[in-house]
């Protein structure tokens, strides 16, 4: 099992890139520890801003810095960043079009036992619905690194969600195909397609391997670019395979499944879409894996769902 979580990769990339680019500024809201950015704060104290526990303030300050040429990276728990600071993200970041990257840490149900205050299971809906805000859910540490490097090279607003815990590798060192804003085909297949993002990509990959053993050819798309959605990859999958399963660590309304269903429903040829997601209720307490298992966000359930669809 990989032990390096995606937050650590973000720290590593920022520590290394901030040495080369003095305009990079990282902001934390008493969150440098939980964001694994303590090292960054130590190495680059002059390119680090602490705002204290003030999630509205941190986003506006980041926007002000960006308006004066800085490249702002805000790291704060996804649950707060995606809702409490939503208006600042809407007005000062997206609307004013400032170069601010909002990194929602410990996203989804990472803080499983802490209750709904600490869950961010509606952040695609909130952030994704803001015009000019992009949304990225990287899957593993290798992809997180690639995504960070791509984001450092652009000037546009974005929201990025990463989980708290290390996740199994989907890719390997040196073999992580990545094109910005294009879904990565994790596993080829022509019977059906699973589309996943973030921590759901690994179970999707596992499900495809299990289905392969049973003679079912399953395509897996790593849709790290939740917005802008890689519509070409979705439409291609709909054309070339019989059905689409979307799995996400998010509620149904406004999520990846809803977006993909909307896209496919508008096509002349209908495609069956099944969405595995979290329910419209506060999630149960537990570790991420336990919560995923309870709600069927697992490779086993993906396998079963795929078989039912093709039966």
């Amino acid at each position, binding site marked *: 099992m990989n032990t390096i979580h995606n937050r650590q990769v973000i720290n590593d990339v920022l520590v290394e890139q901030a040495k080369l680019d003095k305009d990079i500024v990282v902001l934390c809201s008493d969150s440098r520890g939980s964001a694994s950015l303590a090292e960054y704060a130590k190495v680059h104290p002059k390119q680090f801003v602490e*705002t*204290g526990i003030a999630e*509205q*303030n941190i986003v506006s300050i980041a*926007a*002000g810095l960006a308006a*004066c040429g800085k490249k702002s990276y805000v790291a704060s728990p996804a649950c707060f960043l995606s809702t409490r600071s939503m*208006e600042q993200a809407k007005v*000062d970041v997206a609307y*004013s079009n400032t170069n601010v990257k909002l990194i929602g840490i410990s996203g989804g149900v990472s803080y499983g036992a802490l209750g709904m205050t600490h869950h961010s299971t509606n952040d695609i809906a909130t952030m994704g619905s803001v015009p000019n805000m992009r949304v990225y859910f990287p899957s593993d540490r290798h992809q997180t690194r690639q995504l960070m490097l791509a984001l450092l090279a652009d000037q546009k607003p974005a929201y990025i969600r990463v989980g708290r815990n290390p996740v199994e590798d989907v890719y390997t060192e040196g073999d992580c195909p990545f094109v910005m804003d294009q879904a990565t085909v994790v596993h080829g297949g022509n019977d059906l397609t699973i589309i996943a993002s973030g921590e759901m990509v690994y179970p999707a990959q596992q499900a495809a391997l299990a289905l392969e053993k049973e003679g079912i050819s399953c395509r897996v798309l790593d849709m790290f670019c939740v917005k802008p959605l890689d519509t070409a990859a979705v439409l291609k999958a709909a054309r070339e395979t019989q059905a689409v399963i979307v799995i996400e660590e998010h509620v149904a309304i406004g999520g990846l499944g809803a977006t993909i269903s909307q896209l496919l429903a508008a096509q002349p040829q209908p495609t069956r879409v099944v969405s595995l997601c979290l329910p419209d209720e506060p999630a149960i307490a537990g570790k991420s894996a336990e919560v995923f298992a309870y709600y069927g966000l697992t490779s086993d359930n993906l396998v079963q769902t795929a078989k039912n669809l093709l039966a």
Partner: protein
Amino acid sequence: MENLKAKTFEIRQDILDTIVNCKAGHIGGDFSVTDILTTLYFKQMNVDPANPKMMGRDRLILSKGHSVEALYAVLANRGFFPKADLKTVSAYGSKYIGHPTNKVNGIEMNSGSLGHGLSVGVGMALAGQMDNASYRVYVVIGDGELAEGSVWEGAMAASHYKLDNLCAVVDRNKLQISGCTEDVMGHENLDERWSSFGWNVIHAEGNDTDALNAAFEIAKTTNGQPTVVIADTIKGFGVSFMENAAAWHHKVPNAEEYQLATAELALKRSAAQ
């Protein structure tokens, strides 16, 4: 050039024309903040209308974004864009929308939702501090806006980071849409509130360009802490029947009121010359 005080009445006429033309706007707050914006853009700020993105320019954020007609009129008079553009304010497809937008020359940030500007100004001032730049950052806040909690998050951060390149201006006209600020949500001991947050507090007659100019000069020489200029203003200042009347928060003058206001502004302008 005519003196600054006379200029403020010319600008008020442009605001009045704009609001009557587009049949919308916040005339009361526009008139209370006119002298603040005029003093800053004509006397204090290092800006170049021919090069609005000039390196090292001073920055202003109109956090009380609903006073945008005043900002547009001041920027047009300062030469950032032709005065004729004011005729397109709030028109179909116009870039001159009903709140500040950075698509307009001279405007740094979009605003309109209250309580954002001070924190954005903190970010701008921090960037200046990091870069050892000499520019100053001004944030103009309404007094009704002070009820937004985020203002005080920004105030806290500004003094924590000793942002002496940041100057907030409170347009203290004591009126908001529902009535007196003190009845809606009081700001008792306003000076002490700001000073307890670590700010240098200066009071100024907010409809007097000389007094405002003097206050901004003091702010410039204050080291180690941000300054707030609490500008005691009169809502609707310049047109007697609009002054201190909450009803004129966003009322559009009718033809008769327009004539009366125009005549009074002309008189005051010539008296000031």
